[in-house]
């Protein structure tokens, strides 16, 4: 059963015990994204300090294990990073998701994000995994920092 490739322990952990969940103040930019095919939603807030560091990333939403775990992992990976570093991680994650399972994930860069390698083989679920990341990108832009990565 390929199912445990998708539902890796790490993903289920993040889903059941999300990190940094809840919307917090202050923030520089906020974005709300919806997955129109399933109705999943996420709101992302990004706070940037004067040194260009993402001092907080807070979020809320409702959705499946993949989208919720992905938001939790994003929070873990990007909070406290400089925007340009965050962009590199963002890009690597988006590349992994678009790779249909053929991309070898970089554990140093992606941390728990490597657990999503299996998701890339489920086209219908890639959108779930990317939902928080796309919302984050918009929120960051609204907070005044650019996190560019190829759109999914």
């Amino acid at each position, binding site marked *: 059963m390929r199912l445990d490739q998708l*539902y890796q322990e790490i993903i*289920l952990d993040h889903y059941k015990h999300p990190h940094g969940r809840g919307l917090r103040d202050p923030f520089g930019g906020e974005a709300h994204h919806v997955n129109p095919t*399933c*109705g*999943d939603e996420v709101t992302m807030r990004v706070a940037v300090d004067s040194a260009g560091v993402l001092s907080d990333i807070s979020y809320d939403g409702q959705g*499946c294990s*993949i989208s919720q775990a992905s938001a939790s992992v994003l929070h873990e990976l990007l909070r406290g990073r400089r925007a340009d570093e965050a962009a590199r991680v963002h890009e690597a994650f988006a590349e992994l998701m678009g790779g249909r399972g053929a991309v070898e994930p970089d554990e140093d860069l992606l941390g728990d994000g490597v657990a999503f390698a299996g998701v890339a083989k489920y086209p219908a679920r890639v959108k779930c995994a990317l939902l928080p990341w796309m919302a984050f990108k918009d929120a960051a832009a609204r907070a005044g920092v650019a996190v560019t990565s190829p759109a999914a």
Partner: protein
Amino acid sequence: MSTAAIPQGMPQYEDKPRFDVEKVRADFPMLDREVNGHRMVYLDSGNTSQKPRQVLEVMQAHLERHNGNVSRSVHTVGTEATEAYEGARAKVARFINAPSVDEVVFSKNATESINLVAYSFSDRADDPRFRIGPGDEIVISEMEHHSNIVPWQLLCERTGAKLRWFSITDQGRLGLDKLEDLINERTKIVSYALVSNTLGTINPTSAITTRAKQVGALVMLDASQAVPHIPVDVQDLNVDFIAFTGHKMCGPTGVGVLWGRYELLNAMPPFLGGGSMIETVSMSGSTFAAPPARFEAGTPPIVEVVGLGAAVDYLSGIGMEAIAWHEKELTTYALDALLAVPGLRIFGPETPVGRGGTLSFALDGVHPHDVGQVLDSVGVEVRVGHHCARPVCARFGVPAMTRASFYLYTTTEEVDALVRGLDQVRKIFG
């Protein structure tokens, strides 16, 4: 019609028409396939149905032997194609007991059929029944599919009319208590689902048509989930329009039906303009053909209509009464089985009366996406999401639902497989 043994544990209504499900299943090539190493259990017929061999063969034969364009040629091939196309119209008319074949308009899907009616209303309409503006009202329900919501929202935006809604009771039935207020002298049209695609509810018609006639409002039924599953007789229903779609009733994609009372169709302006819907075209202006041609601009879905005709033959051969009864028995069985699953909540009627074989549910704290994914891993194909009916989800306070929907080829063993799959889900996400 062959009679099969009535499964143990089911009420023994021996006078009900029955058929042999295994024999029916043998007609559907798709039902043989595997999914993730398991025999596929297809519980997504509300989304789209599988197609029997009989339909595929008719379509194949048409394309290999009679392929030509319709109603434009005097040649033999064109004449044969036209006869096949118009013959299918007659079959569809008979299937829904339409008083005239000319009341059957072919569209691309139910969605287009509903839009066609919505676009007939405007502030410029010649016929007062289709003239609409600020102060006028349109009534739909909270349990509609998006295809019976958005066309009316767009119409209201274009014209300033107001959209009003039937509510849903906690049991998943249409809220009729405010009927007199909801449908009133300002109402131009009432449009709602005969059978809900999420809750499975079979909605009442006579109280609504009676009230609508009282105030001079038109009534349209979205029969997309009805025509495939229960006998539908437009004269009996006493409504003005019904819409349905080929791919949910053993026919191909690419074809839908709008049935309308001839006199009304005849009062409607053209919608899509183009070849075959005209009487005469000149640089100074054009005049239009009578219905149904007026609404069939361009080359129609010829082989798809022919396929739909074959689907109607297939369903009639088995008998719609028998199909409805089969699904009723299955639903009884499935409601019993699902309600016994710990933490499972049914959206819609929990009794197998006044409902069809479409069961939406929530499982504890598990998101439907995850439910569907685990079920798929054991070959059980259900739909998850908002089912193109977000207001229903909002009504029941959930972002999404899991839905199992049955058809004539569904078996109690498949319901068992669903229940076993749900055990798996609870193991992983428990």
